[in-house]
């Protein structure tokens, strides 16, 4: 039971991170490898706001997420939009996002150094609570609650609002959407904003959860994120949510049963298995093989 709770906790962060990843892929058909760098920078941003400026975490989180959204807009404008017309835009977009990620990492390394930074003690009340035999901290519960809330808001947005409908239209068929009068450029910008804001929020929550932020924090979650979106299916938000929790729970149980050195092996095993057996993932629709 305790493991299940830990798994849900971990999974909620993975899911929140992956949801942004898959949103952009669904809309633009490009893997944004800078997503993890935004994740990392926002974690640092929250750290700075709380640690150096003494801001309360409840305010720092949305601010950092907003910063993430802005970074997403910048990314879209500079690294992705100019490549839009090109024939190899998937690959060149990937490379472009890698370049952006590298730049972000360099900035983080320069500003914060390579070592681990922590939130100051007492940034967040950390009362342990008991659910049956299991112990969970108030922090963990809050993090899960926030993640789930954000994902629920996103799903509602995509299903029920005009913006969400337009995003789905562009994801389905950009040319048709354009003909129907949708401002595709703006929708793509919005998608990046939302995706990166969620990714940034995930970063802050991750930083709080493990109380450890360093410039290579993005790398470690990037692989997990890739495994999640592959399992869930590229472009499917629901898939990402399900897969995120699944991998989180799987990872926790593997560590408990087999050993902590195999924690990352879970993600890779899932990744390769899915790619070899059913590249579409659970709910994905993208064509995965060469014609």
């Amino acid at each position: 039971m305790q493991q299940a709770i830990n798994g849900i906790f971990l999974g909620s962060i993975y899911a929140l991170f992956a949801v942004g990843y898959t949103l952009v892929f669904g809309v633009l058909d490009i893997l944004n490898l800078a997503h993890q760098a935004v994740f990392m920078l926002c974690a640092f941003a929250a750290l700075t706001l709380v640690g150096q400026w003494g801001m309360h975490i409840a305010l720092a989180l949305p601010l950092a997420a907003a910063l993430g959204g802005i970074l997403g807009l910048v990314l879209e404008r500079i690294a992705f939009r100019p490549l839009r017309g090109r024939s190899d835009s998937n690959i060149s977009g990937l490379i472009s996002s890698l370049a952006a990620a590298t730049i972000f990492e360099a900035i983080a390394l320069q500003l914060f150094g390579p070592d681990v930074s922590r939130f100051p003690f007492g940034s967040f009340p950390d009362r342990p609570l008991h659910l049956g035999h299991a112990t969970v901290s108030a922090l963990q519960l809050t993090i899960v609650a926030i993640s789930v809330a954000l994902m629920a808001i996103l799903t509602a947005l995509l299903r029920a609002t005009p913006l969400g409908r337009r995003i789905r239209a562009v994801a389905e068929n950009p040319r048709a959407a354009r003909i129907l009068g949708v401002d595709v450029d703006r929708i793509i910008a919005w998608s990046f904003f939302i995706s990166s804001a969620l990714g940034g929020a995930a970063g802050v929550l991750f930083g709080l959860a493990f109380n450890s932020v360093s410039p290579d924090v993005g790398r470690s979650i990037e692989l997990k994120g890739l495994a999640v979106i592959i399992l869930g299916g590229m472009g499917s938000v629901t898939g990402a949510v399900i897969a995120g929790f699944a991998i989180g729970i799987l990872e926790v149980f593997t560590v408990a049963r087999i050993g902590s050195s195999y924690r990352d092996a879970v993600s890779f095993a899932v990744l390769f298995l899915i790619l070899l057996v059913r590249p579409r993932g659970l709910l994905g629709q993208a064509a995965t093989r060469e014609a």
Partner: protein
Amino acid sequence: MPDFLLAYQSLFAFIGINGLLALSVYCTLCCGQLSLANAGFMAIGAYAGAILTQNFHAPFGLAILAGTILPAVFAVPLGLPVLRLRGVFLAIATIGFGEVVRLAFVNWDYTNGALGLVAIPQKTGLWTIWLALAFALYVLGRIRGSRPGYALEAIREDEPAARTMGIATTRYKVSMFALGAALAGLAGVLEAHLTFMVAPNGYGFSRAVDMLVYAVVGGTTAFYGPVIGAAFLTLLPELLRGGGQALGLAPGPLRLFLNGAILLAVILFVPNGLASLPAAMQIFRPRRPPRSAALR
């Protein structure tokens, strides 16, 4: 002149090694595949060679041979299923492979896990590296314009169309994947015996990205492009190091920033890489239209 060479010996050595790494990435790029697996192959080659010289006192030549061939052997069973995947998925699978290799070495006690091996005998000379690089350039240069070279070009441009011309595309892609693995392994062995050490974290995702950056910045339309990229991106941080320190910039982040910024600039403005600049600049000098070589 010899003084100059001595003073900058290590710089030239690393340009050579990075050139080899860039060429290893070129092997897959030239048939249209984006693979980030070569850091993993480099690790396999480096460790294989290091274990042979350190633990078994094998001659350096044998270590080089092993470090080159072993990764290629691994590449074939990995490549066969994975090269069928579309661009993005292939990239992801190769990223995964790289991480698997790194983690495997981190968890392998025989090689001291995360600490890696140290005090590897230093056997790599500057000439060894540049000879290896020259050999790699020769091989890749000869492939260009040959029957397989045309096939690779066709695969890169339009794989299904190439298949309708009888080109067994999977076989070619796997072969180039294996060749890339061999070159990465070769670079790994040479580097291990140059820097005395191997450690898993030196062969992670950032290494794989570095190699890709060299190849893309240099350009993959010409087979020597990647080496130009490697040279440029190895030299630049060194040249700017003094200025960077004056501005308070640490060398690590500076190099990383330069890599990222230059890659971004190249992919946006000079997508065919630096090696394509001379041809592009001819636009400004009106003369009769350049006669394409029979190949292009």
